[in-house]
């Protein structure tokens, strides 16, 4: 009798699961397929990403540390703006990050043949040339990582907290231009977000529209 009841419960559970699965798949089916790389959401996984030095890294391995993602394309004037002398905005942010034990990942999602596409050696050479010091430069010629994050522009910035939650997504700063002079005037959203995360406070401006060149998928 007991086993009979259990079987019934099992059946009921099975039915319920089937209903839930059907409903779930319907919801999934009809929902927007784009993943949500938005503040407050967990960051999409990055696994087996190939870096410019030939290593493979995953986002998981940095868990506990704050991670910055920077979409880049060395040919893009907006990227150049933030690497240009004398301000060397990105270089400064990268070295500050490394001092604060923050992992800075530059991502190149340009497709082969498009502007900004480079191989590992090329990426290393670019970094050396402009004095950039990201922890890693991820090569994403297929654009998978870029699409998973919905990266639209170079630069497009993401700050991911140690627990994997996205703390900031959007523009590097508040003045949408390609002019180096504007950097001094602008509010740097990424720096502000990193400060808030370090202080354990919520990020005040967690989401902005990125500006720059389109990612050359």
């Amino acid at each position, binding site marked *: 009798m007991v086993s*009979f*009841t259990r079987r*019934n*419960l099992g*059946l*009921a559970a099975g*039915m319920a699961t089937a*209903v839930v699965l059907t*409903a779930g798949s*319907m*919801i999934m089916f*009809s*929902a*927007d397929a784009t993943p*949500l790389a*938005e*503040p*407050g959401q967990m960051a999409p996984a990055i696994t087996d990403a190939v870096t410019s030095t030939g290593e493979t890294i995953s986002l998981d391995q940095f868990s506990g540390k704050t991670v910055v993602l920077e979409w880049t394309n060395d*040919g*893009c*004037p*907006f990227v150049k703006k933030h690497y240009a002398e004398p301000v060397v905005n990105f270089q400064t942010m990268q070295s500050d990050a490394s001092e604060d034990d923050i992992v800075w990942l530059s991502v190149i999602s340009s497709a082969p043949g*498009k*502007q900004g596409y480079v191989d590992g050696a090329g990426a290393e050479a670019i970094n050396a040339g402009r004095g950039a010091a990201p922890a890693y430069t991820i090569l994403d010629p297929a654009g998978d990582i870029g*699409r998973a994050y*919905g990266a*639209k*522009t170079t630069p497009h910035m993401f700050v991911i907290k140690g627990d994997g939650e996205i703390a900031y997504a959007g523009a590097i700063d508040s003045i*949408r*231009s*390609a*002019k180096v002079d504007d950097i001094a005037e602008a509010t740097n959203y990424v720096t502000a977000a990193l400060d808030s995360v370090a202080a354990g406070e919520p990020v005040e401006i967690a*989401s902005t*529209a*990125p*500006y*720059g*060149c*389109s*990612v*050359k*998928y």
Partner: protein
Amino acid sequence: MTVAFRFVCLLPVLAMAALFAPAKAQPVDGGHARVELVSERAIAVPGETVWFGLSFEIDPNWHIYWLNAGDAGIPPAILWADSLAVSEDAIGPFQWPVPELLPIVPNEIMDYGYSDRVVLPFAVEISEDAQGPILFEGIADYLICENICIPESAPIRLLQSVGAEQVPDSYGGDLIIEALGQIPPELDGAAALTQSGETWTLSVATPQLAGRTGEARFFPNDHDIKHAADQPVSFGPEGLQLELTPARSTTAFPEMLSGVVTVGEAAVAISATPGAILPGTSDGGTLSAPAINLPVLIILAMIGGLILNLMPCVLPVLSIKAMGLVSAAASGNGREARAHGLWYTAGVVLSFAALAAAIVGVRAATGIATWGFWLQDPLVVTALILIIFLIGLWLLGMFELGSSVQNVGGSLAQKQGPAGAFFTGVLAAIVGAPCTGPFLGAAIGTIMGQPAPQVFLVLIAMGLGMALPFLALSFMPSLQRLLPKPGAWMETLKQVFAFPMFLTAAWLLSVLGALAGYRMAAMVVAGAALIAFGIWALKSAGQGGRAILIAVLGLITIIPVFELMGALSATDTHFVGVVRALAQLLVMAIAIWVVARLSTERAGLIARIGAVLALVAGLVLPVVQARSALAVEGGSEAYAAVYQTEAWSPERVSELVAEGRPIFIDFTAEWCATCQANKLQTLQTKPVTEAFEAGNVAFLVADYTRPDPLIAAELQKHNRAGVPMYLWYPPGDSEPQVLPEVLSIDLVTGLVEAG
């Protein structure tokens, strides 16, 4: 050779042109665009506002950006030289011609901008005390992109002559006039933004766009929406609707959404504020792509289905199911309970699927489907009445089906298992479906215009929801234990439930009367009597077969008796009539004599055959009659007569609007329970009739008891799937307010007083 020759010929012309050209700067090549500052005046007058234009001639395949560049890019700007003699306040902002869509990466990155040629006009105030030429000098800063992006700068320079007399500059003037013609005008109408689940509906009602067709697009001034997302469009008589996708799931619903709406060549600058979807901006919910929030609708439908179980017309049907379940649970036969549950679910879900198929079919055939349309067919209503009457008889214990009684054949009892459960489900669905209106009005409204798969999904979800309680019960022995023990109370409860069934039949009879006239209704009652007789006779045929046959024959004998009396009482005796009546009487007498001598078994058999024939006739004859039932007296006129008012027609409405009278329109139907409730509790009450009279309100009635394409179109115009719909036209207003489906006296009198 020819080219060279032509060029040589042109040389003098070019030289002449250069000589007489107004003093203007040459375009400057910034790299991938020729940039130039132009003015509409060769000589401007002090104190006037002059249009300037920043002209771009862009290399093929390259583009510059609109005021909102979209996902990537930056709009052009002018950096005026510090030496500029004019205050920057005197220089107005760029006016932006309608941009193009620049799908940089399809479905992922969308920019807005210009290619080939664009002039960005801006207004410049020439100060009152201006003397002599004014130098406008600066740098045009613009991002220009092909596959790659280059920020370019071009020095621009214009020497604006100022004098006492206006002299136009034909070159600059032509460019600027053409550009100003491309600036979207301000909206003359209304624009509303409505949250529709996860998307936003932008509805724009304006004569500027109404009737236009072509590619439609909303270009936002800001980044509230996802630029790369499709914008499914729907056109209506007043304008259009666009489904917009918020930029992020966290994007706040904006207080105001500004931008440009384009339809083909037409464009309008709008600022939409939150509000209800504007009427007449869609063709009845048929968006060019699925834009409803399907998951939410499915969940709503399931809940609606669940609630259906409590409807007074459904509950008795369910009691049949409940009884079976109580018995099965008591007997501890879990497998039987489960089988019942599954078959029942199959019945309900299949019925709802059939309903979905009917909706899709009717829509394909007539272009319009409204909820409850099946009650517009006398055939369906007739069949429903008879079936419900039969169920009533069964509940009352007039006859038995199934395992609980043994005197019906064993084969039937076995069949009752799956088939019985299945048909209970079918029945519950049939009886329940018309009751969905009040709960699911809005949801059903959206689904009626959706593509077929959505219609099926939502209706099947509704069926699942309806079947869920029993399904759960039959699979959960722990729940079954909560059920009361079977006993004599079950029979009593069952019999009590017979009466709601008869009342349901009575209500449907009134629907039928309105649909096909009282004769048809009487016909159905006669059919019901035949059925009752057949059932009774079947039951009594075992022992009393002979008595039944004799009684029936005796009753039939009355007919020739009357004929005989009629034939005899006529002033001159009708011989043929008398002979025929006598012959008939003889036949009857022989028949009765034969029957009286029959053996009990044989009489029983004949009585049973007769009873079955009566039963079948009772069921079939009214249905056959209903097929040919004429559309009888009635329609809106008859109904309006009941109300002592007049029938609705669009023409009458425009007349009354022209007269400046307020109008209240009642879109109703005999089979619509909510309509009847509103009629009784609000529209026919003294305060309302007095208020209507005092306010000189024209009260029009549109009766949708029977199908009516005009009414259907009007319902659709206001995004309603069916009746009730109440429209209120304030005095002199040609746009009605759609009132809630459930009225109150205060609401209606309040309207009249406010109007």
